[in-house]
């Protein structure tokens, strides 16, 4: 059970969160203009990064907000969490370990 820092509520246990998959997979603005390949890409293709992964979480059993996180999938350590609409912090940002 991970510890996750909600950008609104602070550090909380994973039990309060729902994982939301890869972050920054924007729904195309004009779906009708998409090819089948582009739509399939949006629906199904994911980075599945081994290493730093930008991903979405929702603090479902908390403030209810979706937010984004950078997590190292080889160690399950969070590097940063940030609000929807914000740009991911630079990859060089110092690693932070959540505190209970």
């Amino acid at each position: 059970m991970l510890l996750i820092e909600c950008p609104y509520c602070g550090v909380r246990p994973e039990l309060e969160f729902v994982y939301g998959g890869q972050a920054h997979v924007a729904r195309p603005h004009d779906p009708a203009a998409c090819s089948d390949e582009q739509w399939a890409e949006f629906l199904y293709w994911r980075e599945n990064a081994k290493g730093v992964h930008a991903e979405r979480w929702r603090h479902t059993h908390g403030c209810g907000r979706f937010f984004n996180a950078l997590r190292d999938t080889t160690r399950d350590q969070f590097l940063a969490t940030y609000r929807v609409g914000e740009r991911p912090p630079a990859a060089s940002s110092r690693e932070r370990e959540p505190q209970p």
Partner: protein
Amino acid sequence: MSGDLRAASGGRIDRNRVLRFRFDDREYTGAAGDTLASALLANGVHLLGRSFKYHRPRGVLSAGADEPSALVTVRRDAARMTPNLRATQVELYEGLEAFSQNRWPSLELDVGAVSGLLSPFIPAGFYYKTFMWPRGAWHRLYEPKIRAAAGLGRAPEQADPDIYANRFAHCDVLVVGAGPAGLAAAAAAAGSGARVILCDEQSEPGGSLLAEPAAHSEAAIAGEPAARWLTRTLRQLTAHPRLTLLTRTTAFGYFPHNLLGLNQRLSDHLPRPDPGQPRERQWQVRAREVVLATGALERPLVFPGNDRPGILLAGAARTYLNRFGVLPGSRVVLVTACDAAYQAALDLHRAGVSVSAIVDVRSGAPDGPLLEAARLAGLPVETQATVLGTSGRLRVRAIRIQKLDSAGAPAGPVRRIRCDLVLMSGGLTPSVHLFSQSRGKLAWDESLAAFLPGQAVERVRSVGACRGVFSLAAAVSDGTGAGLSAARDAGFSVSAAIPEAPLPESAAAGRPGALPQPPGVSGEKAFVDWQNDVTARDLTLAAREGFRSIEHVKRYTTTGMATDQGKTSNINALAIVARELGEAMPRVGLTTFRMPYTPVSFGSFAGFARGELFDPVRATPMHDWAARQGAVFENVGLWKRARYFPLPGEDMHAAVARECLAVREHCGIFDASTLGKIEVAGKDAATFMNRMYVNAWANLAVGRCRYGILLRDDGFIYDDGVVARMAPDRFHVTTTTGGAAGVLALMEDYRQTEWPDLDVWLTSTTEQWAVIALQGPAARRVLEPLIEGLDLSAGAMPHMSAARGRICGIPMLLMRVSFTGELGFEINVPADFGLPVWQAVFETGQAHGITPYGTEAMHVLRADKGYIIVGQDTDGTVTPDDAGLAWSIGKGKPDFLGKRALERPALASPYRKQLVGLLTRDPQQVLEEGAQIVPGRHRSAPEPALGHVTSSYHSARLGRSIALALVGAGRSRIGETLYVSMPDGDIPVQVTSPVFYDPQGSRLNG
């Protein structure tokens, strides 16, 4: 028999509290403070069990969690049987009843021991090489025999009545292990003001200090005798209000982000536990800083015949003597590869046990204060020697030793020494289990011949023996330093100077691997893994057969895979394989340490989640009324829903038929409260709904309802439900019962992440409203007298309209909707008023034949009309057009969830499976749901089915069976005859429209 092998005094037992207990149906006595193992040893019982594979007689090897051999079943009553407990950890209580395992007919005379005779032919992995003929015989012939021979104790056969508790906890510093280092760490951290949890697996804190003699101990901490230091430190610790000391509590797992799982055993040591209190409690502790003070385990020596009862680890013998006051033998031979074990011989000597020999197996000329003390005490020390074997059937009787020459090879005469106790020590292995579980790197230390904690990943420190700091004073200093620095790192100001961390010590390095044997002699088995009966020869065989990674060796030979998880065997196995391969030990690898440290009961993981508390039972406000009416309930998600309301003597079929007819002819009342309800509000609510649902919402008038369909962006139906527009900026959205949470989450996702600019908000009102569906031609007549301020006439309140009003004086949201095809209303009242309003409606309805109906009748009634149930008539691969619902899609909408996906080639194909009706020729024949539909009756080979039956019922109103089905290009087949394939023959069916009843909808609009 009484405990005659008890020293006259000493130890931490209470000789005045005599406890009676039974082992294998014989009665014995022990003392308060004993373990089962110590009490049996005090009674001279060394034979405690039989080994897994060869059924060798086995005794006690250790005195703690590392015990591989002395496994017993403890029985409190028929439902409270616990197999495979280590006798070394079972605390004695009055009336304890224990049994040995894996033997028949008795422990002394075990027929299974015949497998020992076959041992030349059943080496490691033998089962991979045989039992293959004839084909299929493995499962029928060989496997049952192997399975019967395998396994240790018997699983309990009755439901466990005990309670298990759970607790989440947080602390600044968690200290695992209450030995000297852990106690010092906890005291230092608590003294700095930190919130500390200190846990230890034993019944009392003290760790290795408990094995020190209370009287004349050489052990001292800063000049203070160890026993006094322990008492004083404990007093100091228990005075700290922010320190929690947990005994009988094993830290079994180290999880990401400094979460540790602790298993606290609350009642297994009690003679008569309160059945209302938990047996165990699982703690999930989140710690800012962790200090591991988990100590070290003594390694056995690998020599022929090293497994007989009466052969113990040297440290264990000290524990039995000094902690439990037990004399484990009368003539002892100590075989050692390290200095520390000499203390065992000295202690036994002082207790009056005759020390026949100390056999030091190290090469070179060992020296040190303990060796000196042994010489001074006149104990016979044989250096540079090896052990060739032992004898004695159920108890060791003698040991054979031989000197080593300068090259380290056995040479010279063989000496046989009579004894009834052999102690051995191959050195100490630091317990790095939890550190390794935390994903910290382990570093091989050649001088210690051990893996030590290296680079940490979590916020964790190791102190004392678990990082190779064995000597008492150094371990205490190490603990103090770690406790202080942990408190500091957790944010507390630390005034005391943090002592420098001591370096690991190589004094206890010992000698991993097998003792040297004369060449060419194929003597007795030299065991590495006691419980799984893995010998040194098995390991060399595995290496010879090409298993070179230690993980392969482990899996091929099963070494280290017994219930002790290789605590005593892993390092010896690694050394033997490394030697065989000519590789350095760390090159061969180290097997991964896996959770749990010692076995943990399933019940403690399950906690209170059992029966009614396994999952929340969600009940509607009208649930108890339905129960009183004799309703049969079904589980739908977490909800309990009334499935049907049988009258006395009715089965489901009869009840459902009666309920259906009542709705069609009079009036039925149905509890629809479980449907999900979401308030979508804000000035952009209509825009939001337009983007989410396939339907057109902009043109829906206030006070009107529409059947909404929600797709996911893959184009398949996700949910459906009636949506009422309550205001220009407000929609009351209903969802399926099972889909409520998912729909809300999906909506929030798009609202927050795709369209954050929209002024729209969502609030679940599922539980705010009790929903009473009143359906049938008499519905309006039943309702009218109860309503204030609303005109229910068809003109004022047509089908698919909604209005606020009052019922029984209660504010209400009334929707005229129907899932039955009849005139119908859904009365939404605040939940607390659900039951009284329901009762009022029911009472008023008596004059109109009102009948409660359940979900089963609801399903039949909607199937009459061809209305789909999402999840039954759809399966996540059905589009609106497949379901015949293309009409619901808002024309000219630029976009909605799933719109683009519907244009993909496979989703636009005319050959897709489409929802149709099926009618059997025999009107009384009800098709089976899930049955496959095929085009022709006579088929030579299996061919792909055209589709399957999704819903099938006997329709009471139609007086015949009806079915819905998904059939390839189904709508183009209407009128055709197809076949439903059944094991006993195909059933011809006619493809029809899915609407069987009132296709014009005149009843609905009445």
